Protein backbone atom coordinates (compact mmCIF):
# COMPACT_ATOMS: atom_id res chain seq x y z
CA UNK A 1 0.00 0.00 0.00
CA UNK A 2 1.56 3.30 -1.08
CA UNK A 3 1.02 6.58 0.71
CA UNK A 4 -1.01 7.73 -2.30
CA UNK A 5 -3.33 4.72 -1.98
CA UNK A 6 -3.76 5.31 1.74
CA UNK A 7 -4.47 9.00 1.14
CA UNK A 8 -7.08 8.16 -1.50
CA UNK A 9 -8.75 5.63 0.81
CA UNK A 10 -8.67 8.05 3.73
CA UNK A 11 -10.24 10.74 1.56
CA UNK A 12 -13.16 8.43 0.77
CA UNK A 13 -13.62 7.66 4.47
CA UNK A 14 -13.55 11.33 5.50
CA UNK A 15 -16.03 12.22 2.77
CA UNK A 16 -18.42 9.48 3.85
CA UNK A 17 -18.23 10.19 7.58
CA UNK A 18 -17.76 13.94 7.79
CA UNK A 19 -19.07 15.10 4.41
CA UNK A 20 -15.79 16.78 3.52
CA UNK A 21 -15.03 16.35 -0.22
CA UNK A 22 -12.28 13.74 -0.66
CA UNK A 23 -10.13 16.09 -2.76
CA UNK A 24 -9.87 18.48 0.18
CA UNK A 25 -8.25 15.76 2.27
CA UNK A 26 -4.62 16.56 1.54
CA UNK A 27 -1.50 15.69 3.54
CA UNK A 28 -0.89 19.04 5.17
CA UNK A 29 -4.46 19.48 6.46
CA UNK A 30 -5.31 19.32 10.16
CA UNK A 31 -8.48 17.36 10.88
CA UNK A 32 -9.73 19.74 13.55
CA UNK A 33 -8.41 23.10 12.32
CA UNK A 34 -8.79 22.74 8.54
CA UNK A 35 -11.41 20.06 7.99
CA UNK A 36 -13.63 20.88 11.01
CA UNK A 37 -13.74 17.25 12.15
CA UNK A 38 -14.50 16.64 15.84
CA UNK A 39 -13.18 13.97 18.20
CA UNK A 40 -16.15 11.63 17.75
CA UNK A 41 -15.85 11.76 13.97
CA UNK A 42 -12.15 10.98 14.39
CA UNK A 43 -13.16 7.78 16.23
CA UNK A 44 -15.51 6.88 13.37
CA UNK A 45 -12.72 7.58 10.87
CA UNK A 46 -10.34 5.37 12.88
CA UNK A 47 -12.87 2.52 12.91
CA UNK A 48 -13.49 2.86 9.17
CA UNK A 49 -9.73 3.01 8.55
CA UNK A 50 -9.31 -0.25 10.46
CA UNK A 51 -11.95 -1.89 8.24
CA UNK A 52 -10.35 -0.52 5.07
CA UNK A 53 -6.65 -0.86 5.81
CA UNK A 54 -6.58 -3.56 8.50
CA UNK A 55 -4.66 -1.26 10.83
CA UNK A 56 -6.03 -0.58 14.30
CA UNK A 57 -5.65 2.98 15.56
CA UNK A 58 -6.16 2.85 19.36
CA UNK A 59 -7.71 5.87 21.13
CA UNK A 60 -4.47 6.70 22.96
CA UNK A 61 -2.63 6.93 19.61
CA UNK A 62 -5.50 8.60 17.80
CA UNK A 63 -5.27 11.76 19.92
CA UNK A 64 -1.73 12.34 18.61
CA UNK A 65 -2.71 12.00 14.94
CA UNK A 66 -3.71 15.58 14.20
CA UNK A 67 -3.00 15.90 10.47
CA UNK A 68 -3.85 13.82 7.42
CA UNK A 69 -0.11 13.15 7.05
CA UNK A 70 -0.04 11.73 10.61
CA UNK A 71 -2.76 9.19 9.83
CA UNK A 72 -1.28 8.24 6.46
CA UNK A 73 2.12 7.68 8.09
CA UNK A 74 0.63 5.69 10.97
CA UNK A 75 -1.28 3.40 8.61
CA UNK A 76 1.72 2.96 6.30
CA UNK A 77 4.05 2.14 9.17
CA UNK A 78 1.72 -0.31 10.90
CA UNK A 79 0.55 -1.97 7.70
CA UNK A 80 4.21 -2.67 6.84
CA UNK A 81 4.88 -3.95 10.35
CA UNK A 82 2.05 -6.44 10.20
CA UNK A 83 2.66 -7.57 6.61
Amino acid at each position, binding site marked *: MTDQEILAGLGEIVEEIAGVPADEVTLSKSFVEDLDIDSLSMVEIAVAAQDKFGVEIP*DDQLKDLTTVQDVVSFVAKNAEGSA
Partner: protein
Amino acid sequence: MTSPAQVRSFSPYPPAGGARVLSFGGYQPANVLTNDDLAAMVDTSDEWIRSRVGIVSRRVAGPDESVTDMAVVAGGKALAASGLSPADIDLVIVATCSTEGSLPNVSAVVAHRLGIVAPGAYDVNAACAGFCYALATASDSIRAGSARHVLVIGAEKMTAWIDFTDRSTCIIFADGAGAAVVAPVADGEPPGIGPVVWGSAGDLGDKITIAGRNAFLWQEGQTVFRWATTAMYPIAARACERAGVEVSDLSVFVPHQANLRIIESIARKLGVPRERLADDIVHAGNTSSASIPLALSRMAERGDLKPGSAALLLGFGAGLCYAAQVITVP
Protein backbone atom coordinates in the same frame (compact mmCIF):
# COMPACT_ATOMS: atom_id res chain seq x y z
CA MET B 1 -44.21 -2.16 60.19
CA THR B 2 -45.58 -5.13 58.31
CA SER B 3 -49.03 -6.21 59.27
CA PRO B 4 -50.05 -9.84 58.77
CA ALA B 5 -52.33 -8.65 55.97
CA GLN B 6 -49.27 -7.46 54.06
CA VAL B 7 -47.67 -10.86 53.82
CA ARG B 8 -48.58 -12.50 50.58
CA SER B 9 -49.25 -16.22 50.76
CA PHE B 10 -47.04 -17.27 47.90
CA SER B 11 -48.30 -19.94 45.57
CA PRO B 12 -46.57 -20.44 42.26
CA TYR B 13 -48.49 -19.86 39.08
CA PRO B 14 -48.51 -22.32 36.24
CA PRO B 15 -45.61 -21.56 33.90
CA ALA B 16 -46.64 -19.35 31.00
CA GLY B 17 -45.75 -19.85 27.34
CA GLY B 18 -44.46 -16.31 27.16
CA ALA B 19 -44.90 -12.75 28.36
CA ARG B 20 -45.92 -9.53 26.69
CA VAL B 21 -45.97 -5.82 27.42
CA LEU B 22 -49.47 -4.51 28.17
CA SER B 23 -48.75 -0.80 28.51
CA PHE B 24 -46.16 1.93 29.03
CA GLY B 25 -46.00 4.97 31.27
CA GLY B 26 -43.52 7.81 31.55
CA TYR B 27 -42.59 10.82 33.61
CA GLN B 28 -40.38 13.82 33.00
CA PRO B 29 -39.69 16.49 35.63
CA ALA B 30 -41.12 19.93 34.89
CA ASN B 31 -37.79 21.80 34.87
CA VAL B 32 -36.45 22.22 31.32
CA LEU B 33 -32.71 22.77 30.91
CA THR B 34 -31.84 24.12 27.47
CA ASN B 35 -28.49 24.22 25.72
CA ASP B 36 -28.46 28.00 26.18
CA ASP B 37 -28.94 27.49 29.93
CA LEU B 38 -25.88 25.23 29.93
CA ALA B 39 -23.90 27.69 27.83
CA ALA B 40 -24.40 30.22 30.64
CA MET B 41 -22.87 27.73 33.11
CA VAL B 42 -19.94 26.16 31.21
CA ASP B 43 -17.89 26.86 28.10
CA THR B 44 -20.20 25.37 25.47
CA SER B 45 -22.86 26.42 22.96
CA ASP B 46 -26.14 25.26 21.51
CA GLU B 47 -24.45 24.46 18.20
CA TRP B 48 -21.62 22.50 19.87
CA ILE B 49 -24.03 20.39 21.97
CA ARG B 50 -26.38 19.68 19.05
CA SER B 51 -23.51 18.59 16.83
CA ARG B 52 -21.79 16.38 19.45
CA VAL B 53 -24.71 14.68 21.19
CA GLY B 54 -27.88 15.77 19.35
CA ILE B 55 -29.64 17.12 22.45
CA VAL B 56 -31.70 20.33 22.30
CA SER B 57 -33.18 20.28 25.80
CA ARG B 58 -33.45 17.94 28.76
CA ARG B 59 -35.38 17.73 32.03
CA VAL B 60 -33.95 18.05 35.51
CA ALA B 61 -35.61 16.87 38.72
CA GLY B 62 -36.18 19.34 41.51
CA PRO B 63 -34.06 19.20 44.66
CA ASP B 64 -36.81 17.37 46.57
CA GLU B 65 -37.76 15.09 43.69
CA SER B 66 -36.28 11.61 44.09
CA VAL B 67 -35.75 8.57 41.88
CA THR B 68 -38.58 6.95 43.83
CA ASP B 69 -40.95 9.88 43.23
CA MET B 70 -40.38 9.69 39.47
CA ALA B 71 -40.70 5.89 39.46
CA VAL B 72 -44.03 6.12 41.26
CA VAL B 73 -45.52 8.48 38.66
CA ALA B 74 -44.29 6.48 35.65
CA GLY B 75 -45.28 3.17 37.26
CA GLY B 76 -48.71 4.49 38.19
CA LYS B 77 -49.32 5.66 34.62
CA ALA B 78 -48.29 2.30 33.16
CA LEU B 79 -50.51 0.50 35.66
CA ALA B 80 -53.49 2.74 34.84
CA ALA B 81 -52.97 2.21 31.11
CA SER B 82 -52.77 -1.57 31.55
CA GLY B 83 -56.31 -1.92 32.88
CA LEU B 84 -54.98 -3.96 35.81
CA SER B 85 -55.36 -3.04 39.46
CA PRO B 86 -52.55 -2.83 42.03
CA ALA B 87 -53.74 -6.14 43.49
CA ASP B 88 -52.90 -7.87 40.21
CA ILE B 89 -49.19 -6.98 40.41
CA ASP B 90 -47.01 -9.50 42.23
CA LEU B 91 -43.53 -8.38 41.22
CA VAL B 92 -42.02 -4.89 40.95
CA ILE B 93 -38.58 -4.42 39.40
CA VAL B 94 -36.90 -1.01 39.24
CA ALA B 95 -33.81 -0.48 37.10
CA THR B 96 -31.75 2.40 38.45
CA CYS B 97 -28.15 3.41 39.09
CA SER B 98 -28.67 6.88 40.57
CA THR B 99 -30.48 6.50 43.89
CA GLU B 100 -29.64 8.90 46.68
CA GLY B 101 -29.03 6.02 49.08
CA SER B 102 -28.74 2.27 48.68
CA LEU B 103 -31.37 1.26 51.28
CA PRO B 104 -34.25 0.73 51.17
CA ASN B 105 -34.47 -0.33 47.57
CA VAL B 106 -36.67 1.76 45.29
CA SER B 107 -38.97 -1.04 44.17
CA ALA B 108 -40.49 -1.91 47.57
CA VAL B 109 -41.21 1.75 48.33
CA VAL B 110 -42.69 2.35 44.87
CA ALA B 111 -44.93 -0.69 45.30
CA HIS B 112 -46.11 0.54 48.68
CA ARG B 113 -46.88 4.01 47.36
CA LEU B 114 -48.84 2.55 44.45
CA GLY B 115 -50.89 0.35 46.77
CA ILE B 116 -49.35 -2.86 45.52
CA VAL B 117 -49.40 -5.05 48.61
CA ALA B 118 -46.44 -7.30 49.38
CA PRO B 119 -45.10 -7.98 45.88
CA GLY B 120 -41.67 -9.36 45.15
CA ALA B 121 -39.56 -6.23 44.84
CA TYR B 122 -35.97 -5.70 43.74
CA ASP B 123 -33.79 -3.12 42.01
CA VAL B 124 -31.53 -3.86 39.06
CA ASN B 125 -28.30 -1.99 38.39
CA ALA B 126 -27.11 -2.63 34.87
CA ALA B 127 -26.71 1.12 34.30
CA CYS B 128 -28.16 2.28 30.97
CA ALA B 129 -28.93 -1.34 30.04
CA GLY B 130 -31.00 -1.79 33.21
CA PHE B 131 -34.49 -1.62 31.69
CA CYS B 132 -33.74 -4.37 29.15
CA TYR B 133 -32.28 -6.55 31.93
CA ALA B 134 -35.36 -5.94 34.10
CA LEU B 135 -37.73 -6.65 31.21
CA ALA B 136 -35.93 -9.93 30.48
CA THR B 137 -36.11 -11.10 34.10
CA ALA B 138 -39.78 -10.05 34.30
CA SER B 139 -40.52 -12.15 31.25
CA ASP B 140 -38.55 -15.10 32.65
CA SER B 141 -40.36 -14.86 36.02
CA ILE B 142 -43.72 -15.07 34.27
CA ARG B 143 -42.58 -17.95 32.10
CA ALA B 144 -41.31 -19.82 35.16
CA GLY B 145 -44.51 -19.21 37.13
CA SER B 146 -42.91 -17.19 39.91
CA ALA B 147 -44.90 -14.07 38.98
CA ARG B 148 -48.03 -13.33 37.00
CA HIS B 149 -48.04 -9.58 36.40
CA VAL B 150 -44.87 -7.50 36.69
CA LEU B 151 -44.37 -3.75 36.91
CA VAL B 152 -41.01 -2.89 35.34
CA ILE B 153 -39.64 0.62 35.82
CA GLY B 154 -36.50 2.48 34.78
CA ALA B 155 -35.99 5.63 36.88
CA GLU B 156 -33.00 7.93 37.17
CA LYS B 157 -31.90 11.18 38.72
CA MET B 158 -28.61 11.31 36.86
CA THR B 159 -28.17 15.02 37.54
CA ALA B 160 -27.58 14.22 41.23
CA TRP B 161 -24.29 12.65 40.11
CA ILE B 162 -23.25 15.22 37.52
CA ASP B 163 -20.57 17.87 37.93
CA PHE B 164 -22.15 20.95 36.38
CA THR B 165 -18.71 22.41 35.73
CA ASP B 166 -17.77 19.39 33.54
CA ARG B 167 -19.00 20.26 30.06
CA SER B 168 -18.34 16.75 28.73
CA THR B 169 -21.02 15.18 30.96
CA CYS B 170 -23.40 17.94 32.09
CA ILE B 171 -24.68 18.45 28.53
CA ILE B 172 -25.67 14.78 28.19
CA PHE B 173 -27.38 13.44 31.29
CA ALA B 174 -30.90 14.10 32.53
CA ASP B 175 -33.68 12.82 34.77
CA GLY B 176 -36.90 10.90 34.21
CA ALA B 177 -38.68 7.57 34.48
CA GLY B 178 -40.44 5.08 32.24
CA ALA B 179 -42.39 1.93 33.02
CA ALA B 180 -44.09 -1.09 31.50
CA VAL B 181 -46.61 -3.61 32.78
CA VAL B 182 -45.79 -7.18 31.74
CA ALA B 183 -48.30 -10.05 31.68
CA PRO B 184 -48.46 -13.63 30.42
CA VAL B 185 -49.65 -14.26 26.87
CA ALA B 186 -52.84 -16.22 26.37
CA ASP B 187 -52.43 -19.98 25.90
CA GLY B 188 -51.20 -20.75 22.42
CA GLU B 189 -50.17 -17.14 21.70
CA PRO B 190 -46.55 -16.45 20.72
CA PRO B 191 -44.37 -14.58 23.26
CA GLY B 192 -44.52 -10.79 23.03
CA ILE B 193 -41.08 -10.41 24.61
CA GLY B 194 -38.38 -12.16 22.61
CA PRO B 195 -35.26 -13.89 23.94
CA VAL B 196 -32.77 -11.48 25.46
CA VAL B 197 -29.23 -11.21 24.15
CA TRP B 198 -27.17 -9.80 26.98
CA GLY B 199 -23.63 -9.60 28.22
CA SER B 200 -20.96 -7.37 29.67
CA ALA B 201 -17.44 -6.14 29.02
CA GLY B 202 -15.91 -5.78 32.46
CA ASP B 203 -12.49 -5.14 30.95
CA LEU B 204 -13.90 -1.71 30.03
CA GLY B 205 -15.53 -1.24 33.44
CA ASP B 206 -13.32 1.72 34.28
CA LYS B 207 -14.53 3.71 31.25
CA ILE B 208 -17.81 4.89 32.87
CA THR B 209 -17.78 5.31 36.64
CA ILE B 210 -19.30 6.91 39.69
CA ALA B 211 -16.39 5.98 41.91
CA GLY B 212 -17.81 6.77 45.35
CA ARG B 213 -20.53 8.53 47.28
CA ASN B 214 -18.92 11.93 46.78
CA ALA B 215 -17.84 11.29 43.21
CA PHE B 216 -19.38 12.51 39.99
CA LEU B 217 -20.16 10.49 36.90
CA TRP B 218 -17.08 10.26 34.72
CA GLN B 219 -16.62 8.63 31.34
CA GLU B 220 -13.96 8.20 28.72
CA GLY B 221 -16.12 9.44 25.89
CA GLN B 222 -14.09 8.38 22.87
CA THR B 223 -13.60 4.81 24.10
CA VAL B 224 -17.27 4.42 24.97
CA PHE B 225 -18.25 5.93 21.60
CA ARG B 226 -16.01 3.46 19.76
CA TRP B 227 -17.35 0.50 21.76
CA ALA B 228 -20.99 1.49 21.32
CA THR B 229 -20.69 2.14 17.58
CA THR B 230 -18.80 -1.08 16.84
CA ALA B 231 -19.86 -3.73 19.40
CA MET B 232 -23.59 -3.03 19.80
CA TYR B 233 -25.10 -3.45 16.34
CA PRO B 234 -24.17 -7.17 16.22
CA ILE B 235 -25.92 -7.64 19.60
CA ALA B 236 -29.04 -5.96 18.25
CA ALA B 237 -28.88 -8.09 15.11
CA ARG B 238 -28.64 -11.26 17.22
CA ALA B 239 -31.69 -10.25 19.26
CA CYS B 240 -33.63 -10.01 15.98
CA GLU B 241 -32.33 -13.42 14.87
CA ARG B 242 -33.29 -15.02 18.17
CA ALA B 243 -36.78 -13.53 17.91
CA GLY B 244 -37.12 -14.70 14.30
CA VAL B 245 -37.64 -11.14 13.09
CA GLU B 246 -35.96 -9.49 10.10
CA VAL B 247 -34.51 -6.03 10.72
CA SER B 248 -36.62 -4.80 7.79
CA ASP B 249 -39.77 -5.93 9.63
CA LEU B 250 -39.14 -3.75 12.70
CA SER B 251 -41.58 -0.88 13.09
CA VAL B 252 -39.22 0.94 15.42
CA PHE B 253 -35.73 0.62 16.90
CA VAL B 254 -35.51 1.98 20.44
CA PRO B 255 -31.90 1.96 21.61
CA HIS B 256 -30.83 3.51 24.90
CA GLN B 257 -30.84 7.24 24.20
CA ALA B 258 -27.13 7.66 24.84
CA ASN B 259 -26.08 10.18 22.23
CA LEU B 260 -27.80 10.83 18.90
CA ARG B 261 -24.60 10.19 16.96
CA ILE B 262 -24.10 6.82 18.64
CA ILE B 263 -27.63 5.62 17.99
CA GLU B 264 -27.69 6.94 14.41
CA SER B 265 -24.46 5.03 13.77
CA ILE B 266 -25.84 1.80 15.29
CA ALA B 267 -29.07 2.15 13.26
CA ARG B 268 -27.10 2.75 10.05
CA LYS B 269 -24.92 -0.31 10.59
CA LEU B 270 -27.94 -2.41 11.52
CA GLY B 271 -29.83 -1.30 8.41
CA VAL B 272 -32.67 0.48 10.23
CA PRO B 273 -33.94 3.54 8.28
CA ARG B 274 -33.55 6.84 10.15
CA GLU B 275 -37.31 7.39 10.36
CA ARG B 276 -37.69 4.15 12.35
CA LEU B 277 -35.08 5.16 14.92
CA ALA B 278 -36.41 6.52 18.22
CA ASP B 279 -34.71 9.86 18.88
CA ASP B 280 -36.31 10.88 22.15
CA ILE B 281 -32.90 12.05 23.36
CA VAL B 282 -33.38 15.33 21.46
CA HIS B 283 -35.76 16.64 24.11
CA ALA B 284 -35.19 14.17 26.97
CA GLY B 285 -31.40 13.89 27.16
CA ASN B 286 -29.71 10.71 28.34
CA THR B 287 -31.76 9.33 31.22
CA SER B 288 -29.82 6.06 31.55
CA SER B 289 -32.11 3.12 32.39
CA ALA B 290 -35.21 5.32 32.00
CA SER B 291 -34.51 6.29 28.41
CA ILE B 292 -35.99 3.27 26.61
CA PRO B 293 -39.34 3.05 28.45
CA LEU B 294 -39.59 6.86 28.52
CA ALA B 295 -39.12 6.98 24.75
CA LEU B 296 -41.68 4.20 24.27
CA SER B 297 -44.23 5.88 26.53
CA ARG B 298 -43.85 9.22 24.74
CA MET B 299 -44.21 7.54 21.35
CA ALA B 300 -47.30 5.68 22.61
CA GLU B 301 -48.81 8.97 23.82
CA ARG B 302 -48.23 10.56 20.41
CA GLY B 303 -49.73 7.55 18.63
CA ASP B 304 -46.38 6.81 16.95
CA LEU B 305 -46.31 3.12 17.97
CA LYS B 306 -48.01 0.50 15.79
CA PRO B 307 -49.78 -2.03 18.04
CA GLY B 308 -48.89 -5.62 17.19
CA SER B 309 -45.69 -4.65 15.36
CA ALA B 310 -42.14 -5.62 16.34
CA ALA B 311 -39.92 -3.15 18.23
CA LEU B 312 -36.24 -3.74 18.92
CA LEU B 313 -34.87 -2.56 22.27
CA LEU B 314 -31.13 -2.21 22.95
CA GLY B 315 -29.67 -1.08 26.26
CA PHE B 316 -25.95 -0.41 26.76
CA GLY B 317 -23.85 1.52 29.22
CA ALA B 318 -21.63 1.35 32.27
CA GLY B 319 -20.28 -2.04 33.27
CA LEU B 320 -20.01 -2.10 30.38
CA CYS B 321 -23.36 -3.93 30.25
CA TYR B 322 -25.68 -4.50 27.34
CA ALA B 323 -28.97 -6.27 26.57
CA ALA B 324 -31.32 -6.41 23.61
CA GLN B 325 -34.68 -7.97 22.85
CA VAL B 326 -37.54 -7.68 20.39
CA ILE B 327 -40.98 -6.95 21.81
CA THR B 328 -44.45 -6.84 20.37
CA VAL B 329 -45.84 -3.31 20.66
CA PRO B 330 -48.96 -3.21 22.88
